[in-house]
C-alpha cells in the first residue's frame, strides 16, 4: 500500500529526512515514532503528496506521489498535526464542504455516517471554534474518513486528548485499521506499543529501528536484562556465566541472584539454563526483563547523543542537521 524507497527531503540547506526506505502493507497499522523534529511530519507530508520528495520514490495506493499526485490524494485520508479546521464553519458544514471537494456521491448520507463513526453527530450544528480539542480531533478524523480512503495518514492523532478520548480514538483506529492501511505518528510510545503492528523509529531524519514493538525490545536493545536465581550462594557461577557467548555483563546482586545483560539479536536463556544445570547449580528462576519501548527509544536516540545535540540545536534555526 505504501512503498517508500530512499526518500530524502531537503528544505533548502537543511535535510529533514535522509534515505528512508520502508513499506506498509494493506490492513497494517504502522507507527512512526521519534522525538520532535525527527522528520515524522515531513515524511507524512510527502506520503500525502503535499510535498514532493527531493530524492527517492514514494508509491502510495499504487500511484507515485510525484507524478500521479491527484490519484494518490483521492485514495489517502490525512489528519495533519494540530488539525487545521475552519473555525467559522459548523461541523456539518465543514464535513459537507470536504465531501464536496472529494466529490463524494450521496454526500449528505455519507457525512451523517462519518459523524456517527467518529461520534460527533450530536455536535453537528456547533461551530468548530466552540469545540474542544478532542472534538476537533474527531472532526479532523471524520474528514479523513469521508472518502473511505485506502490509506490513512494520521499525524499525532492522540495529541492533546484526555485519557478517555485517547481510549476512544484507539478503539476507533483499531476498528478502521481492519480494512485500511494506517500510518500514524506519535512521540508517545505507549500508544505505538498498543496500536501498531509495526513501529518505525525515526531520529534526526533517519530510521534507527523498525520492527514489531515486542520484537524491537528483543532485537535492538539486546534482549534486555535477564534475572537469574539459583539455590544457594552460587559460588563460581559468575565466571561460568561470563564465559557464555551472548552475555555482555554479569552482576552478582546478592548470593544466588544475578543480573545478566545480553547482546542484541539472540535469546540466550536456553544456554544459561543448560550451563546452570550442567554446572550442578539448582535453577530457581530465570526471567527476561523486557525493555519497554520507552527504554529502547531512549537508548536509540541517545546513541547519537554527541552530534545529535548539535543537530537539535541547529534545527531550531533551520541549520543543517
Amino acid at each position, binding site marked *: 500500500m505504501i512503498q517508500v524507497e530512499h526518500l530524502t527531503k531537503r528544505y533548502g540547506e537543511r535535510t529533514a529526512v535522509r534515505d528512508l526506505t520502508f513499506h506498509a502493507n494493506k490492513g497494517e497499522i504502522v507507527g512512526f515514532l521519534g522525538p520532535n523534529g525527527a522528520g515524522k511530519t515531513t515524511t507524512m507530508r510527502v506520503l500525502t503528496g503535499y510535498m514532493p520528495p527531493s530524492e527517492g520514490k514514494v508509491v502510495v495506493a499504487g500511484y507515485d506521489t510525484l507524478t500521479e499526485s491527484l490519484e494518490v490524494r483521492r485514495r*489517502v485520508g490525512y489528519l495533519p498535526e494540530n488539525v487545521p479546521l475552519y473555525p467559522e464553519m459548523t461541523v456539518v458544514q465543514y464535513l459537507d464542504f470536504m465531501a464536496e471537494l472529494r466529490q463524494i456521491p450521496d454526500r449528505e448520507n455519507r457525512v451523517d455516517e462519518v459523524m456517527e463513526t467518529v461520534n460527533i453527530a450530536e455536535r453537528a450544528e456547533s461551530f468548530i471554534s466552540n469545540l474542544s480539542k478532542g472534538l476537533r480531533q474527531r472532526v479532523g478524523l471524520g474528514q479523513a474518513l469521508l472518502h473511505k480512503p485506502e490509506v490513512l495518514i494520521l499525524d499525532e492523532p492522540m495529541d492533546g486528548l484526555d485519557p478517555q478520548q485517547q481510549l476512544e480514538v484507539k478503539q476507533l483506529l483499531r476498528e478502521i485499521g481492519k480494512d485500511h492501511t494506517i500510518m500514524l505518528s506519535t512521540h508517545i510510545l505507549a500508544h505505538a506499543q498498543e496500536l501498531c503492528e509495526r513501529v518505525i523509529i525515526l531520529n534526526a531524519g533517519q530510521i534507527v529501528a523498525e520492527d514489531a514493538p515486542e520484537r524491537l525490545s528483543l532485537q535492538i536493545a539486546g534482549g534486555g536484562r535477564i534475572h537469574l536465581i539459583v539455590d544457594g550462594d552460587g559460588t563460581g557461577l559468575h565466571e561460568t556465566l561470563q564465559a557464555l557467548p551472548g552475555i555482555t555483563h554479569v552482576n552478582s546482586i546478592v548470593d544466588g541472584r544475578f543480573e545478566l545483560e545480553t547482546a542484541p539479536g539472540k535469546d540466550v536463556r536456553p544456554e544459561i539454563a543448560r550451563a546452570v544445570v550442567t554446572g550442578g547449580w539448582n535453577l530457581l528462576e530465570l526471567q527476561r526483563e523486557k525493555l519497554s519501548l520507552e527504554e529502547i527509544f531512549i537508548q536509540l536516540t541517545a546513541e547519537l547523543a554527541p552530534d545529535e545535540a548539535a543537530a537539535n540545536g541547529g534545527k531550531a534555526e533551520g541549520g543543517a542537521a
Partner: protein
Amino acid sequence: MKNVWTVAKREFNMYFASPIAYVSAFLVLLPLGIYFYGNLAVSSQFGGTPQPTQTVGLFVVLMLFFIPVLTMRLLAEEQRTGTIELLLTAPVREWELVAGKWLAAFGFVALLIFFTGTYPLILNNYTTPSIDVGAALVAYAGLLIMGAAMLSVGVFFSTLFANQIAAYFATMAVLLALWLMQTPLQNATGPVANFLSYLIFPDHYYNNFINGVVDLGDLVYFLSVIVLFLFLAARSVESRRWR
C-alpha cells in the same frame, strides 16, 4: 472544474460569516449614497441633469481600498492556520483553489455593483428624457471587469503572505502605483514610457467604458491582468511544494 465552484461557494458564504461583508458594504454604500443624494439635490436646486455614471467614479476610488479587504484573507489565512494543507491533500489543483477564491470575491463585488445599480434606476425616475440605459450598462459592466482585474492582483498577494495585513498593503500599494504613475508618465516619451502608460489601469476605464464605449483593447488589458495574476497566484501556491 467543479472544485472551483465548491471553493467559491464556501468562500462567498464566509464573507457573510465574518464582518468583512458588512463592513466593506458599509464602506462602499454609505459614501456612495451620500454622494448620490448630494448630487441629486444640487441638480434639482440649480437645474441640470446629473450623469447616470456620476457615482461610478467614486466607486472606482473606493475599490482601491476595499478590494484588498476582500482578497487579503483568501489565501493568507489558509496559510496562517494551515488549513491549506487539507485543501491541497484533497484532490484539488492549485489553479482550482486560486480561481475559486477569486470567483468568490468577484461574486461579492458583483453584488455590491448590483446594489449601486439602483442609483441610475432612481435617477431615471427624475429625468426627462430618460437616461441612456445602454451607456450606463456599459459603464457598470466596465466596473465589473476592472474589479475582477483588481481582485486577481489581490489574490496573488494573498498567496505570498501568511499575514492578512501584509497582503492588504501589498495589494493596495500595487493598485495605487498602477493608478498614480499616470502623473509622472504624462510627458514621458519612448518605448518604456509607452509600455508603462499602457499599464495605467484607470485609463482603460475612464477613456471608454465610462462613456458607454466598449474598446477591445481595454477588454484585452483587463482580461490579461486577470489571467496573468491568477496564473502567478497558482504558481505561488504551488511553489510552497518546492520551498
